[in-house]
């Protein structure tokens, strides 16, 4: 019964033997997607290949993977070639990959892109690194195949444009696996042993595989390291290699490279002419501008300003002077006017009229006064005369005019009765026009009068 049981090792060895003897498993072509990719520090690559339904553990040892032109990455679809075997310690069957290339795009393209990115990241393409090509090269190195059309194009062009420059062709392989090493060696040689001041590196057109040598990192790094400025001319216009990126100048074609390497004497002459023309122009311009500016300043208002200022000030002064004079005249004439007016009023206020009025009034008073007084006097006189007339009319002695006489005794009494007198008495008899002194001769008394009294 015991014999029925195998050890794990025995089984594993059995399976291993089975697998290794199967001719199909010895060379397996497989398509799949990379996952769990791990690039071990010792150089081996571990990965899984998978598709929708399954996965297989794989390994690619350093000895194989150092020939890869690209770096595998997770998710990358690849085509691989290898053998199936068992890794005994784990009892695990694995695909031992010998070759790998990207599925879909080509491996070379992949490698190109990857290297380009890498070198660009390192800064090998940066414009600052680019060395300038001397205008007048003294010695030109041409690194290319000595037999191709490229070298002919280059040499012809150089001869045509700039025949005085010496040219040295460094023949190299431009196709095949040795290209990179060959080119790189030639560049290094030129740097070490030649007094070139320009290198033209290139070849004619071809497929990507044909041009591949110029895409290799070795060449790129050698070009970057070159002290001599490098003009790259690989393939035709549409072909661009890593070398082109690294080179100091990229020419589209070998002919173009030669044109870039040497100047045309006519171009130089033109350049010199242009510079001189610019020199002249800028000098003349500066001079003209200075002159114009000076003219402008000289013609500016400011240079006429003092004249105009003077004119204006003259006018200002005249105006002020005129105003001053007219003002003083006005002041004086106003004062005169005022004076004349008041003087006229004063002269009208002379008391002549008052005096005249006074006189007239006084005269009137005096006249009136005298008149009144005379009236009064006349009135009094009239009154008196009237009284006097009346009195005169009433004069009791008037009767005598009719012949009567009034006897008065000596005492002045009117003798009315006979018994008032005696014989011999002296009487005064008043008659119309005087009195008569008489003596009483007799006294006779009437009878009836006596009784009556």
């Amino acid at each position, binding site marked *: 019964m015991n014999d029925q049981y195998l050890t794990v090792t025995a089984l594993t060895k059995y399976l291993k033997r089975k697998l290794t003897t199967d001719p199909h498993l010895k060379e397996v072509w497989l398509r799949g997607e990379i996952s769990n990719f791990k690039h071990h520090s010792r150089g081996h690559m571990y990965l899984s290949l998978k598709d929708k339904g399954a996965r297989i553990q794989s390994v690619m040892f350093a000895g194989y993977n150092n020939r890869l032109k690209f770096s595998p990455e997770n998710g990358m679809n690849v085509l691989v070639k290898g053998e199936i075997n068992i890794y005994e310690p784990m009892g695990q069957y694995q695909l031992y990959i010998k070759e790998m290339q990207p599925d879909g795009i080509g491996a070379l393209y992949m490698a190109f892109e990857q290297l380009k990115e890498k070198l660009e990241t390192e800064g090998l393409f940066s414009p600052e690194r680019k060395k300038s090509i001397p205008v007048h090269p003294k010695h030109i190195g041409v690194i290319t195949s000595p037999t191709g059309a490229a070298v002919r194009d280059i040499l012809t062009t150089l001869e045509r444009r700039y025949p005085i420059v010496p040219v040295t062709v460094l023949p190299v392989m431009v196709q095949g696996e040795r290209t990179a090493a060959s080119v790189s060696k030639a560049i290094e040689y030129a740097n070490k042993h030649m007094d070139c001041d320009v290198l033209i590196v290139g070849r004619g057109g071809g497929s990507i595989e044909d041009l591949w040598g110029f895409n290799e990192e070795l060449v790129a790094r050698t070009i970057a390291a070159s002290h001599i400025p490098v003009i790259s001319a690989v393939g035709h216009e549409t072909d661009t290699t890593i070398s082109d990126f690294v080179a100091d100048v990229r020419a589209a074609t070998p002919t173009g490279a030669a044109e870039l390497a040497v100047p045309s004497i006519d171009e130089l002459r033109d350049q010199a002419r242009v510079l001189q023309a610019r020199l002249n122009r800028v000098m003349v311009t500066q001079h003209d501008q200075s002159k114009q500016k000076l003219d402008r300043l000289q013609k500016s208002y400011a240079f006429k300003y003092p004249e105009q200022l003077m004119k204006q000030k003259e006018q200002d002064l005249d105006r002020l002077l005129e105003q001053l004079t007219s003002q003083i005249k006005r002041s004086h004439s106003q004062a005169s006017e005022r004076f004349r007016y008041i003087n006229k009023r004063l002269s009208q206020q002379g008391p002549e009229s008052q005096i005249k009025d006074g006189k007239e009034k006084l*005269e009137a008073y*005096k*006249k009136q006064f*005298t008149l009144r*007084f*005379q009236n009064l*006097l006349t009135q*009094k*006189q009239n*009154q*008196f005369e009237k*009284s*006097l007339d*009346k*009195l005169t009319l*009433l*004069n*009791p*002695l008037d009767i005598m005019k009719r012949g009567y006489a*009034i006897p008065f005794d000596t005492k002045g*009494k*009117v003798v009315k009765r006979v018994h008032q007198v005696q014989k011999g008495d002296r009487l005064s008899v008043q008659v119309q026009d005087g009195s008569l002194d008489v003596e009483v001769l007799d006294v006779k008394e009437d009878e009836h009068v006596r009784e009556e009294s």
Partner: protein
Amino acid sequence: MSEKKAEISFEEAMKQLEELVEKLETGDVPLEQAIQYYQKGMELSKVCNEKLGHVEKQMQQIMNEHGELEPFSVQEEGKS
């Protein structure tokens, strides 16, 4: 007498005179009385007359006094 009379005013004298005249006008006055009245009247009349004359003289004098001073005013008066 005239001096005593002079002391009464012209108006008083005139008044007395007028009274006398009135009395006389009644006609009731006995002759003798009448004669006395009359005589008194005449005296009063004289007084009045004198007074009037005096005043007139005074006036003339005043006029003269002020006349020479102001001949023209006199003339003025003369014209009017």
